[in-house]
Structure formats: C-alpha cells, structure tokens
C-alpha cells in the first residue's frame, strides 16, 4: 500500500484548489509558450515561474530534482555541441552564441516544473473531468483516466511480483545492474500471465458498467471557476501574449484580441 508512485501528491494548497479546467488550460498555454518564446531569457523566466509553482504545490524536491537530473546528459550534450566551435578554437562561447542551446535547456526545465506542478495537484478523475469540461471527446477523457489506472495497477502488480521473486532468490538491487536487469527479465512471464489472465474480465467489466462509447452518457461538469482560477489563467495569457508581442512585434491589442477569441471558442 502506498508504494506505487503516483503523479498526484495530496496537499491542500492554492494550486490544489484550482479548477482542473483552469490548470489544463494553463498547461495548453505552456505548450504554446514553448514554441512562441522569442529568447532563452523568456524560457528562463518561465523556469523561474515553474519553480515558484513547484514551491506553492509543495512538491517533493527529491522527486523534482531527480526528474531534472535525468535531463542533465541532454543538457550537457546540447550545450557542448553548440559551443564546440569556440571550445575547439580555445575560446569560451558567449551567452548569445549559446542562445539556441540555452533556449532548449530552459524549455525542458520550464516544461518539467510547470507541468509537474500542475498535474501533481490533480487526481486522475479530476484530470479527466477537466478534459470533459474543456469539451474534449469522452472517449479521450476515459482513455486518459483508464490509462492512469492501468499504469498504477500494473505497477502494483509488478511490485508484488518482484516481492515474490525476492522470495525465490531473485534479488533486484540497483547496485548490481546486471543482476538487476536479469531480475527484471524474470518478471516478464508472471507479469504477462497476470495481464493476459485479467484481460477478458477487464473487458467484460468495462462493457458491463456502461463504459462502451455507445452507452456512455456525457457527464455534466459543474462550473466552479473562481477568482483564483481567473488569476491563474489570466497570468498564463499575459505571459503568452507578452511572448507573442516580443516575438512577432504585432500590436498589443491585435494579439490580445486573437488570443482571447481562441480562448473563448
């Protein structure tokens, strides 16, 4: 119990209390921003905002740092590649020469911090309800929710099977990577058997409980948007609009009009 790592972290913060639709919309704005941001400084600013959001959401720093450290090899290789000419010439590259690389490095970090801050404050059914509230087709909403469940339930099974393997003498310790990989391989048969044995029952249960697309009614999502949600969404829109203005140099009002029209539709 409690050993399967889940995306959702239980707390009561201002970010947890925001409506899932607002958070999912801000996530969409994040994706747009990653393409729109004109310079690496904008990305760095979003990274800073992401770190603040992580602080507000009370994320585990070990978890966030661990996820970020996974990107370090990519960060080093991209930066080294961008700086290769100067380095081979025996010079240190300037920040402007590293612009593209820094853009990507900060984009990764910003995407990680902002998205994890948003999604860790939403339960799986809240994510699905948020998608429903935004008009996403029901089949996609259900697929997202069921996929999360299958991942968590399967991880639980894998942990149980790994325990059973330990009892047989298959110890999987990360300090011994070869033995660890061999141990992982030994999980294959019981995991597959478990999944295959359950498949018919799972399909039957979904059909029986009305999850088939033809029988499922659309769910009503009550509107609970408040000032906090408006501030969250407004902040995201301001950031995106600012990036648009900085990048394309169009007039402020044209940008605002265009973006708000898109948001309202």
């Amino acid at each position: 119990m409690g050993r399967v790592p889940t995306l959702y972290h239980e707390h009561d913060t201002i970010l947890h209390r925001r409506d899932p639709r607002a958070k999912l919309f801000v996530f969409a704005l994040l994706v747009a921003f990653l393409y729109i941001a004109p310079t690496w400084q904008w990305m760095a600013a979003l990274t800073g905002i992401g770190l603040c959001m992580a602080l507000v959401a009370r994320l585990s720093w070990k978890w966030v740092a661990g996820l970020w450290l996974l990107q370090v090899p990519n960060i080093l290789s991209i930066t080294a590649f961008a700086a290769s000419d100067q380095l081979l010439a025996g010079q240190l590259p300037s920040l402007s020469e590293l612009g593209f690389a820094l853009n990507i490095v900060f984009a990764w970090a910003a995407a990680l911090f902002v998205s994890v801050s948003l999604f860790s404050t939403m339960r799986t059914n809240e994510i699905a309800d948020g998608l429903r509230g935004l008009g996403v087709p029901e089949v996609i909403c259900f697929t997202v929710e069921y996929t999360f469940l299958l991942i968590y339930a399967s991880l639980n099974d894998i942990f149980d099977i790994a325990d059973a393997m330990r009892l047989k003498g298959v110890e999987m310790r990360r300090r011994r990577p070869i033995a660890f990989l061999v141990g992982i391989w030994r999980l294959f048969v019981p995991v597959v058997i478990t999944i295959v044995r359950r498949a018919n029952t799972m399909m039957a249960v979904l059909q029986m409980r009305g999850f088939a697309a033809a029988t499922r009614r659309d769910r009503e999502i009550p509107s609970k948007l408040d000032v906090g949600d408006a501030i969250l969404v407004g902040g995201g829109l301001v950031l995106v609009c600012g990036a648009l203005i900085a990048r394309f140099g169009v007039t402020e009002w044209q940008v605002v009009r265009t973006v708000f029209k898109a948001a309202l539709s």
Partner: protein
Amino acid sequence: MLNVCDFTFRYPGTVTPALSGITFDIEQGEVLGIVGPVGAGKTSLCMALAGFIPQVTGGSSTGELTVCGLDPREVSNEAMAYRVGMVFEDYTAQLTQPTVLSEVMSPLLNRGVSREESEDRARKLLDTVSLTEQVDKRTWELSGGQQQQVAIATTLAMDPDVIIFDSATGMLDPMGTADVRTLINELAGETTLVIAQNDPDMLIGLTDHVLVLSAGESVAFGPPEQVLRDEDLLDQSAITPPVCLRAARALDLFETPLTAAAFEEAVKSSTLSEVDSEQPATDGDRPGETLVRISDVTYQYPDGTTALSNVDLEVRAGGVHAIIGGNGAGKTTLGKLLVGLLEPMSGRISIDGVDTYEQTASELARTIGIALQNPDERLSERTVESEIAFPLHRHQYERTGLLSKRKHYDNSYIDHRVSCVSELVGLEQELHDRDPTLLPRGQRQLVAIAQALSLDPSVLILDEPTVGLDSAARRRVGRTISRLQEMGKAVILIEHDMDFVCDVADTVTVLDDGSVALAGSTRDVFTKHSQETLSEWWLRLPRAGQLASRIGVDALTLDELVSKLTSIPEVS
C-alpha cells in the same frame, strides 16, 4: 428471466466443450445456485448469462440462451448494458477507477445520473458493504477482500435486473460473507440472482434452485432441499455435502437436515446424548521450541497509515498458528514482515533465533517460506519441476570472493528435494513436465507451496491457501499442513475460512485494525466468546461449532461434535 436450453460452448481452439447441453429456467426474482468443483464450468456459465461468452472470450456456442428476454449473443452491447451485473472471482480485474468512491460512482455517471446523486448513492452503497472509511482510498492499494467489496458495491450501483456472484465471497471475511448473504436475501424477489460457489453450504437458505455442474455438464437441477440432500450425486460430482448432512450421516441420524434448525430438531428427536469426555489437551500447549517471535512490532505504510501496532506473537515448532481478522486488518502485511519483504518501524522479529533485520528476504527463505495469496506471482519457469527447483538452484552456490564460490549441495540433492516436497504436498509426478501457469488454480497453489518448502524452512506461512479451491484441493492443503506438523515445522495460516482454521490450527491470533485483539488456543478463542463478540472482530464460529452450539455441545469441528455425541442404546 433466464432461459437456457441445450446450451453448449467451446472456447477458441478447444475440442472439449466447456459447457455441454445445459438446460434450466429461472423466473424473475428467483435465486439460482450453481455448485461444482473447480473446472466444472461455473464461471463459463456465469459469463454466458452475462453476455460475455462468446462476445468477449471468443469461441462457439449452440443452443438457446435468453436473458431478460434477449439472446446476448445476438443483440448489441448497448441492449445488454446494465441488464446484468456480475461480480467476478478476480477482484483486481474489476477495477476501472483510481479511487473507491469514483469506482462506485462510475456506472451511475455513465448512465447520466447527476454527480451529486451519484456520490450520494455511492456513499450509501459503500456503507452497505462496510467500506465507509475507505471512500478516498486508491483502489489498487486495498486488500483483496476490500477490492471485492468495492466490486459488489459497484455492481449494486448498476441496479441491474440480474446479478451474478461468481465465487465472489472467497476473499471476504466471515462478516463480509454474512453481509453478502443478507444482501442476497434483501434483493431476492425483485432481482434475479445467480450464485456460483464451490461450497454448497453457502447456497442453503438462499436459493430457489440449485444447478450442479460437473465437467461442463449439468448433473442435477432442482430445489436445494432435493439436490443438496442427494449425497451420492454430490460425492460423484466431487462436492462436499453440506455440514449438517455430513454431521447427520456421521451420527447415523435418520433425517437429512440441511439447516442448523433442522439438525437441532433431528438430534432432539434422536437417542443421541452428550458423552462425558475429557477435554482435549489444551491445543496451545505444543512442547516445541519457539521458532517465530514477534515482539512489539509496529509498521506504517509509506502514506503514513498504521498497518500494525504493537503486535506480539509466538509460534512453536510443530504448531499451526492461524492469524485471522477482518479484511484490511493487517494479516498479509504481518506475513510480509515475517519473511523480510517489509521492515518493521519498531519492534523485533526473529525466526529460529535470527533477527529478520539481519537478513534479506532471499536469505530468510531458508528458514521461513511463504505461499502468497496469488500463486501466479511467483510462477516464472516453464515446468513444474524447474519451478520447484528454482530456489534450490539460486542458493546452490555462495560467493566467497570476487572469483570464488562455495557449493552447498549438488544437483542430485536438488532432484531429491523436488521429489520430497512434491510428495509432501501431493503433486503427482506426471505434472512435473507441465507448464505450471497452465495448471488449474488448486495445482498452481500446490506448486507455490512446494516451492516455498524446497529450501526446507523451519516455518511455512500460507496466505489464504484455500481461496478458489474445491473440497478435494482443500483436503490436500490440510494434509500437507498435518505432515508439516509431524515433521516438527511451524505453520502460520492466514485465513478467512473459520471451518478450515478450526480443523487445522492449534492457536489463533485475532487482528483488528492492526492490533492484536485476542490470542490463544483455537478452542479458547472460539468457545469463550459469544458470536456477538466474535462478529465485532469480523469473525464467526465454524459451521460445526454453530451446530454444536445449537444443541448445547462444546465442539468446534465435525469430528469433535460426533465424538461428543453417542446413541443411547434402546432398552427392550
């Protein structure tokens, strides 16, 4: 409501039909009981009635099948949706949502019921199955019995015309099973119910009709009073007769009672009386050394929930100790602590004098073995023989240096151990070349037990070994436990089946919400507390004990009951 005529079904790629020539009719509101040994076709028939065979499983069928006026094979999924609800034996496969509350709400939401009403109804249903405190829990983190209770609540939320319970009570504690019986009694008359069971006792007093299946064929169909009294039929179908009937047969009573009340009447009208017999030696006084000692152990899950609190327990060599309690009481968690899969937050656990903290789970397997609830979790090899030998091969060598290792035993010893444990648990030699994952559940359970015994541990833990087993397989497990006792090993049994516990266990620890509520000899625990007190700990008297209690005899097992009653010779 359910009309079946000469129904035959074959799974894809098989020649032998799983169901052959099945015929019966059930009216609306009636309750049908289906009984038979493992592999008889009970689940296949349930799946056919629910409309999943052959639509989900594939295969071919012939004959007539009408459920709620429709042939499920010919209508669309939409037409059958919500008409039939089924609670499956596999509790984990029935999860579709991440939390308990959302799971029960889901069929209501799918039907277009408002969120507020769905939540209100879901909470009431969770109260019905005694899961009020688990509403916000993640479904995959519940115990097996709790997951089954969620499945029952979710099926009730569907409000179907037909509800099928397919061996749905195996993982439930005794009070959970009693709740299901109460529920069935409440639903009968309005909802058509189908109850598939290995155990015919569950069907008495609940069903209007009983169908006996054997090897896919219907061998009897009729009222339970008629079908379940036919001992020859039940014996030929490898079904253990109801306990009242067995007691009456053992006591040479003329009547053939099926209920406790009828048994009481039969005994009163007979010449039986209680003999003065010496109380058996206190069951708990086994002279062997203490092999398992748990001292003040506390354990918390990673999310902070206290699973076990200040638990003390001792098990001696040659003893069988049962750990019982309600679903979620911490029984399996205690088992995992004993074998080193978990580490206690405080307290000490020693096995055969060695602290579990000093050894890994793999090292501890030499002194304490465990057969887990789900035998499939440990089956990874392609033959039964290699599966049983697996731990022996893993422990054959011990690394003594970077390039050196010491051999503990040779391959002939491994072959010898495999033969010994196979014989011990009753696994036939012919099965050794078979793929263990393709064996019936009862045999897979025996393979798992044999594997746990292969390293010749001093202690064996059996976690719910009788779930899903028919009477023949249960007897094999019971015989294995007896042989282990004779060999001086200690057995720890985690069980919900009080009949089995009283048959095999000398001592008992009752866990309630992670704490020890009661501990002592089996006799003391069950005879010195009323049923009301036992039900507070989610327990009940064994069936033989209930019969004995009705006629004022102190007995927990059928053998005890019979030995305490004797016939007064008639004076001519």
